[in-house]
């Protein structure tokens, strides 16, 4: 314990900086993931015949070990923060894509028909019916992805992306378990916080009428 406190006082400033980096990498990756996966998921609902195949292909990507992805990306994107973000982004796509697709597909078809019959354009149907009603499912996909990403972001250190992984790798290299713990605990806390915060947001965004069912 004393060792940890000594390390903390020695690395305190470093810790803050690394946590910041860590948050930035995760946030950037998840935002990128959201902005790609949600529109893609909605597009997939328009081509349900091939959607399953596309989703399983993305599922295969997900199974490639993260370390391997990072290694693969190095020749193309070099080292640093950018390849780290891109690698993490790839991992965030599947859960969000899958949940967007399922969420939108599960919206009651009679509502879509009512909307169409009243003269909603395709875009209006998405914006006024499909997205709001699928939002709880989409949000839980985002939450799932975020929690994983915060954990995996420690690997960014491996290709010089920075973040809390730096502390952990330093700890490994220097045989300093305190340093490993110092990197791990904030990462875990970040993940827990993100999970809690997003749960709250999810509840808030759930349409009033559906709160009973999803809670």
């Amino acid at each position, binding site marked *: 314990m004393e060792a940890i406190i000594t390390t903390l006082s020695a690395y305190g400033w470093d810790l803050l900086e690394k946590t910041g980096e860590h948050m930035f990498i995760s946030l950037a990756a998840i935002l990128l993931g959201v902005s790609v996966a949600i529109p893609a998921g909605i597009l997939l609902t328009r081509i349900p015949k091939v959607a399953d195949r596309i989703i399983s292909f993305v599922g295969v990507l997900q199974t490639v070990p993260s370390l391997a992805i990072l290694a693969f990306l190095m020749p193309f994107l070099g080292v640093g923060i950018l390849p780290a973000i891109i690698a993490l982004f790839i991992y965030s796509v599947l859960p969000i894509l899958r949940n967007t697709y399922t969420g939108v597909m599960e919206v*009651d078809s*009679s*509502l879509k*028909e*009512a*909307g*169409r*019959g*009243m*003269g*909603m*354009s395709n875009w*209006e149907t998405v914006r*006024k*019916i499909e997205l*709001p*009603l699928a939002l709880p499912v989409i949000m839980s996909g985002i939450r799932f992805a975020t929690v994983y990403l915060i954990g995996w972001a420690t690997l960014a250190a491996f290709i010089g992306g920075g973040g809390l992984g730096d502390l952990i790798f330093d700890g490994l290299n220097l045989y300093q378990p305190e340093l490993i713990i110092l990197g791990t605990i904030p990462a875990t806390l970040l993940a827990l916080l993100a999970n809690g915060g997003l749960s709250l947001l999810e509840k808030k965004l759930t*349409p*009033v*009428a*559906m709160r009973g069912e999803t809670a």
Partner: protein
Amino acid sequence: MLEFKEVTKTFEGSKKPAVNKLNLSIEKGEFVVFIGPSGCGKTTTMKMINRLVEPTDGQILVEGTNVLEQDSVQLRRSIGYVIQQIGLMPHMTVGENISLVGSLLKWSKEKQRERAKELISLVDLPEEYLNRYPHELSGGQQQRIGVLRALAADPPLILMDEPFGALDPITRDGLQEEFKKLQKEVDKTIVFVTHDMDEAIKLADKIVIMNAGEIVQVGSPDEILKHPANEFVEDFIGKDRLLQSRPDVTRVEQIMNANPITVKEERTLKEAIQVMRDNRVDSLLVIDEIGTLKGYIDIEMIDAQYKKRSYVYEAMDTEEYSVHKSDLLRDTMYRMLRRGSAYVPVIEENDRLVGIVTRAALANMVYDTIWGDETAEVAAAD
């Protein structure tokens, strides 16, 4: 208002057309009900009007314009649409649901709210319901909102796809009556799809019976009941209803007793009692010199007032309910049975009394119908 010209729809992968060379014209303000067994093409026909289903061939003209030449989104906004599953948006308040088309048409928030208030007053729901969510309403209330939503942009034409099909019979009955009244108030042309013959008879100005993608018969409910075009229509209407429809054409004067027991209003109560005794009845219809119906008097009323009053006009009850001699019997029967009265006086112009319909006469009529029909059937079987 609405015209089908040789309209055909063949769905992909099917050889037989779902709707085959359909021709029909619908007048403004008409309530047209499409009816037929499932798969007869009635829903397809309706959905081609707002292009939820695209016709394969032919023309559909709404107020003279071919629907295929209009932008489908704009077209649908100009036609009301009500579906069986109600389809209220669960994430929007009742008010937002009602003004959904308004919001698509980019109405101002005030205009949307005003319109929603105006509409909800049409169906006797309190204004604070506008702030509730659909799941807080009963099924019947939800479909009322569904209908209002279709009325919001004041479209001249409304399409309704079995709108009351998912409701329980009592709610459905109430809603049908309410809706028929509402339709007269707002004066819309309505295309209504159902498989429920009772509903069709109750609501329609014009019934279109379809089978296998083609029109079998078009006519008013009365015409169809009286002159079914062929066996299919007869079967579809059902024997029971053909029987029931008989009193529809019988008028009150055909079964009334033309010699009701009466007393003039200026006679004394004593004389009235004498008339009752002579004719063995317990109540009398009161008339004046020229035979105008004034009221009625019965033995209990005389008994209660015998000491205080001496003339019939002083003791009689003027709250008399009567029917006109050319009224249809079906209305009389219903009203008589509901009021629980033993008889109804029959009048002609100027309230002149011409006869009386008693419960006994109605009973005779019913027996005749049943008995008469049985003998006919026995004869046919032989």
